[in-house]
C-alpha cells in the first residue's frame, strides 16, 4: 500500500492506527469510489479562458415553477449583479434539452452552455433573448460574457 495519509502525532497515534485509517480510506475508495469521469468533468468546467480574472459568483438560483400540468419545462431565475436571467429548460430528444433564456435588462451578450460533451454557444438578441436548441442533458456550466465580466453558474440542464 502506498498511500501517504495523516501522520502520527500527539494523540497516541501508532502504526496500527495508521494502518486502520489507510484501510478505512481504501474501504471507501472501493465501495464508494469517485465517479471515473468526475475529476475530468470538473477540470473542464473550471477551464474558462478568463480564469485569471475575477469570476463573480452567480450562485443564487431557484426553481420558479416546475412541471405545471403537462407542460414539460422548468424555469430558473438567476439574480446577479448587472442583470437577471431567466432560463427555461425543455425536453428535446433522448439525451438533449432545449434552453430558452432572457436577460433583463435586455442586452446582447454571448452565451455558452458548457457540458461534459462539449460547448454550445449563441448570442442573446437585442431583446435579451437566446435559444440553444440542442444541449446535451446533464449538469452544465452557463457562461455569460459581458465586456468586463464573465458570469458563470452551474445549471441543471436536465430533461424535465
Amino acid at each position, binding site marked *: 500500500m502506498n498511500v501517504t495519509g495523516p501522520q502520527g502525532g500527539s494523540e497516541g497515534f501508532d502504526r496500527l492506527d495508521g494502518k486502520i485509517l489507510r484501510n478505512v*480510506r481504501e474501504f*471507501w475508495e472501493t*465501495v464508494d469510489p469517485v465517479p471515473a469521469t468526475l475529476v475530468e468533468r470538473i477540470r473542464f468546467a473550471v477551464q474558462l479562458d478568463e480564469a485569471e480574472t475575477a469570476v463573480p459568483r452567480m450562485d443564487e438560483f431557484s426553481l420558479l415553477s416546475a412541471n405545471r400540468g403537462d407542460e414539460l419545462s422548468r424555469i430558473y431565475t438567476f439574480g446577479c449583479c448587472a442583470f437577471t436571467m431567466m432560463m427555461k429548460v425543455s425536453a428535446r430528444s433522448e439525451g438533449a434539452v432545449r434552453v430558452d433564456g432572457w436577460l433583463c435588462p435586455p442586452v446582447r451578450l454571448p452565451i455558452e452552455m458548457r457540458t461534459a460533451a462539449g460547448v454550445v454557444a449563441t448570442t442573446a438578441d437585442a431583446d435579451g433573448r437566446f435559444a440553444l436548441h440542442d444541449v446535451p442533458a446533464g449538469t452544465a456550466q452557463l457562461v455569460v460574457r459581458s465586456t468586463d465580466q464573465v458570469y458563470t453558474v452551474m445549471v441543471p440542464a436536465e430533461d424535465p
Partner: protein
Amino acid sequence: MSPAHAEPTRAGGVDYAELALMFHAAREGSRSAFDELIGILTPVLWQVARAQGLDREHSADVVQTAWLKLLGSLEQIHSPGALTGWLITVTRREAWRVRAAHRAEQPFDDLSPEPDPGPGPESRLMAEDRRIRLWAALRELPEQCRTLLRIVAFVHRPDYGEVSAALGMKKGSIGPTRGRCLAKLRRLLIDSDDGEWR
C-alpha cells in the same frame, strides 16, 4: 505538467508538500496546478457529499459546484489547509441545500455502500473478506465516528484545524475525537478477527 507530477497519484494520496506546492502555484495563476488540486482534493469532497446522504449523481454536482465557486474566492484563501476547509464547508453547505430541496421527492440512501463489482481472483477475495469485516466494525461505531473517520481518512494532518471548523467541530477537537473513534474501531477489529489487526 512536469515529470514530477506525471506519475498518477492516487486520489488524494499525495504528500502534503505537493498539496502545498500546487496550492501556491495555483494562486500564482497556474492552470495545471489548479487541475492538480482538483485531482488531489476531489476525493475528500466526494466523501463529504456522500456522507451527507446524497446520491452519486447529486454528489458529483455538488462537488463540481464547490470547485466552481472557488474560482472567485481563491485569492482570499491563504493556506492549503484553509483551502481544504473552505471546499469542505462549501460542499457540506451545497449538499445540505440539495438534500433539503430533494427531501420531499425521494429519500436518499443512508450510507449504504454500493455492491462490489463481481467476484475476482483469490487475492481479491481476501481483500473483500477484509473489507467485509471492516464494514462490520464500522457499522458498530456511532454514526458520528463513522462519518468522521470516513472524512479524516482523506485529510492531511496539518489540515485538521481547518477541517474541524469546516465540519462544525471545535477547533483542536478533531485529533482527540479521531483518537477516540480510532480506538473504538481498533477494539472492534481486534475482537472480531484472526489476528490481522494485532
